[in-house]
């Protein structure tokens, strides 16, 4: 029998606000435990939540970018459950009136284009973290994450393959990063997704029993987990078994999904409207202002780069893969760098240096004016391309004055023909054998001789001039 896999996604995205959703504690990541908390986010008696307007703004921006309809009258609800990482014993979330609903995301895979429908997008607060100490058997609570703002984006069960899911997640990440509402760093947990998956006989209109998978640490893990879980369910059914509705944990090391603790009965969260936060009413003017302020997203940029700069589609994809790169590129062009040259530097040297250092483009110190000047020096013939790459490496980590560096290290290109001629003559004099080889038709020998001349001139020579003069001397 042919089986069809049906997947829906719940993605939690941490918003990049400076402060938490209901208090003014910082959202900074990676600080010592319980240093970013206050009476509000630790659920002290009498403390009250006040909605951070920026969180609302970011959620609406995300909703607009995901083509959702924005809920004009929305509100928060309490989700009640006891757990030590939840100081109030309820999470402030949105159940009844989520801020955005009914959106869509278009994805492209090798199988073609597809639209994924967004069921809803809602705001909520993150919980704290528990640290289990196996040595003492104690569990400690870190409240730094308590109250960090999240949006949860829930799709319809529209995915059929892992590739579609990956394409969706990449599109989502790209969009949210472009909006500046999240950095979407999966390794820091600022983007987490849970996979709801079921299988059914191909062509069937009914959904099978689904499982929910958690603890997916990367897009690759998501894809692997989907393939594993689909195969597991199919094998189970074909073997006469039955899929149990449960939450499963993806174990990356074992490359397998394992059942989490099964609860005897479904948790009743006793949702009710949060009485401490007044209902949210959004005016048309507010929404219009946010719509007008939406930045150009990656897809639009790609189209424009092809149209305006005539860049190949591949280049456009590379440059727009991150908002910071696209901004960098646009700044180079603004500074007069020919678009294709700018693109080449970004795709080659910049991306290379970033990946070598495992850095995010947004964290790059190098500024567009510095690279623009470097490219200009090459264009003016004052640096050769290879030396320019060395200068690039030297200034990449700290930025800096390219001209000063070139001067200080005496790297300016030797364009003086007399010097080049002198060096060529000397190389020919000490390498008569190679000269003879070249003259007898061994082209390879020429490359060796050019290399020797460049070495003599400490790599600063203009390669075109070296070629020309060397050839001239050899012809004599």
């Amino acid at each position, binding site marked *: 029998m042919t089986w069809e896999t049906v997947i829906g996604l719940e993605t939690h995205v941490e918003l990049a606000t400076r402060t938490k959703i209901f208090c003014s504690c910082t959202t900074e990541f990676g600080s010592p435990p319980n240093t970013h908390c206050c009476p509000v986010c630790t659920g*002290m*008696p*009498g403390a*009250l939540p*006040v909605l951070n307007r920026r969180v609302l703004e970011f959620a609406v921006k995300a909703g607009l970018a995901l083509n959702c309809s924005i809920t004009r009258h929305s509100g928060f609800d309490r989700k*009640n459950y*006891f757990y030590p990482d939840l100081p109030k*014993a309820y999470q402030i979330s949105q159940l009844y009136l989520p801020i955005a609903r009914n959106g869509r995301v278009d994805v492209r895979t090798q199988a073609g284009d597809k639209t994924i429908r967004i069921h809803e997008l809602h705001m909520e607060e993150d919980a704290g973290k528990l640290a289990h100490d196996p040595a003492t058997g104690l569990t400690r609570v870190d409240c730094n994450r308590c109250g960090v703002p999240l949006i949860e984006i829930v799709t319809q069960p529209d995915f059929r393959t892992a590739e579609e899911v990956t394409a969706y997640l990449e599109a989502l990440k790209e969009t949210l990063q472009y909006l500046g509402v999240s950095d979407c760093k999966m390794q820091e947990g600022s983007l987490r997704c849970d996979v709801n998956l079921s299988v059914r006989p191909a062509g069937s209109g009914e959904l099978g029993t689904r499982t929910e998978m958690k603890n997916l640490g990367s897009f690759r893990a998501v894809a692997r987990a989907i393939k594993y879980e689909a195969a597991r369910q199919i094998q189970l059914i074909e073997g006469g078994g039955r899929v149990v509705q449960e939450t499963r944990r993806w174990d990356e090391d074992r490359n397998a999904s394992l059942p989490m603790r099964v609860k005897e009965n479904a948790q009743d969260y*006793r949702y009710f409207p949060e*009485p401490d936060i007044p209902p949210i009413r959004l005016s048309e003017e507010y929404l219009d202002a946010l719509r007008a302020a939406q930045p150009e997203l990656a897809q639009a940029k790609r189209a424009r780069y092809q149209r305006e700069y005539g860049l190949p589609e591949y280049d456009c994809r590379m440059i727009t893969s991150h908002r910071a790169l696209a901004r960098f590129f646009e700044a180079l062009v603004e500074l007069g760098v020919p678009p294709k040259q700018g693109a080449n530097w970004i795709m080659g040297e910049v991306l290379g240096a970033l990946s070598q250092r495992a850095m995010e483009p947004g964290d790059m110190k190098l500024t567009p004016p510095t690279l623009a000047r470097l490219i200009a020096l090459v264009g003016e013939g004052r640096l050769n391309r290879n030396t320019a790459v060395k200068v690039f490496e030297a200034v990449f980590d700290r930025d800096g004055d390219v001209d000063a560096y070139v001067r200080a290290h005496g790297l300016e290109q030797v364009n003086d023909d007399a010097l080049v001629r002198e060096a060529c003559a000397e190389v020919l004099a000490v390498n008569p054998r190679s000269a003879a080889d070249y003259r007898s038709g061994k082209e390879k020998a020429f490359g060796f001789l050019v290399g020797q001349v460049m070495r003599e001139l400490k790599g600063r020579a203009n390669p075109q001039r070296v070629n020309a003069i060397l050839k001239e001397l050899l012809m004599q």
Partner: protein
Amino acid sequence: MELMELTALELGTAIKKGRVSVKEAAQAALDRIAAQSSALNAFITVTGERALDRADKLQAGVKDAESPLYGVPMALKDNICTRGVRTTCASKILGEFTPPYSAAVVDKLAGAGAISLGKLNMDEFAMGSTSETSCFGPVKNPWDPERVPGGSSGGAAAAVAAGLGWYAVGSDTGGSIRQPAAFCGVTGIKPTYGTVSRYGLIAYASSFDQIGPICRDAADCAAVLDALQGKDPRDGTSLEGQYGRLLDRLTGDVRGLKIGLPADCYGDGLDPEVRAAVLAAADTLKSRGAQVTELPFPVMEYVVPAYYIIAAAQASSNLSRFDGVKYGRRADEYGGLDDLYRKTRTQGFGPEVKRRILLGTFVLSAGYYDAYYIKALQARAVIKSGFDRAFEQCDLLLTPTAPAAPPRLGTSLDNPLQMYLGDVYTVSVNLAGLPGLSMPCGFDSQGLPIGAQLIGPHFGEEMLLNAAHAFQLDTDFHRQRPKDSICRDAQRVPARLETLDHRPGAQCAPQREGGGPA
């Protein structure tokens, strides 16, 4: 004692004029607390040293003082967080909880030159109408120590009535300021929801909780409310408004004021003596030029059920944070995490709090939410529109505050439903978020105070206080004080603790500053 006869405003004037020092006033109050409070059990924590230190500091600034309450000693209900002073909510579960921050109102009062004498006894988590559910034992009514002072701000009302401070700040979720004010013969006002910050008020039912003053008279209430009200960025439900001018606008002129008597509040279940006293108050206001009319108010049957469903539901969620993990009391011995929760909460909460948590958890449960919570919200909307219609016909409503005189100690908790029904006149005001005031309007044949309630539209505090002030210009019920000898007799009345389900040895102890149990 002469000093104690003064109202808060009169004392403020005496301090301003240098006739009394701040320290003299504070010391006088502390002396009386030492003599009377253990009998009445009005205070949970007395902060005498702090008060005297502050008196010294305040004395230095008397000349520049602007607040009419500058230097006037007062006390706070123990569900209002005070930085560095334990805040118990009269519950074992908060144990020795000392907040690292103060409630917004505490800061505002400090700005107005208030001196806090300590923290006042109350029903546990403000749940109760008698101040008997406190883990520190019941508060007694200074007019008759065999009777309850009302609740949940019973300590506040008893303290003001007995002269243990010149005013108190309490909270009102379903009548918790007005009903004890009525039972103790003092004046109390629950302001419009959203006009006083709830930041730092330990929540019972978030949609209804509101802080307000309990005072000797309406003028004092106006002055304290001027200090308390204001938009607070830390409370999302707090409202913008024109605050701080209630005292200035207190004229006592009620000519042309339309006062409505909701017929449904004068029907079955109302004690005839209470009815007579409240109607007499209507006549007094009429004699000062107000127009009094009867009007139908056919929503009363919904108010108690709607209130108790919504309040209990919110309470069940608000009190979930008391889990033994972060602060307050934790069970001494427990197995796993679930056992920690179970034992901590079983041992930490008293029976009335448990009853409301269970009720609230039930009405929010899957399958019941629509039938109870949603229905109650619909009933609330009906009640609100009932008030809207009433305020199309009149400016204020006049009702009894409570249907009968304060019950005897120990007779209410065995019959909680009866106790809940006693809140019938007050809870409607919280359901609609309106301001409500209780003022003394007479005494029954046993010499117990009777309270009349004035209800106004949103932001109607000025009208309420002005009407009460007018009434108090013509009457002296608010000037009556219980005899000190009665207060002292209170010591001999057993507290009837056996009804409170507190295991032997598990009783909380009132605390003097700096030390262990007194």
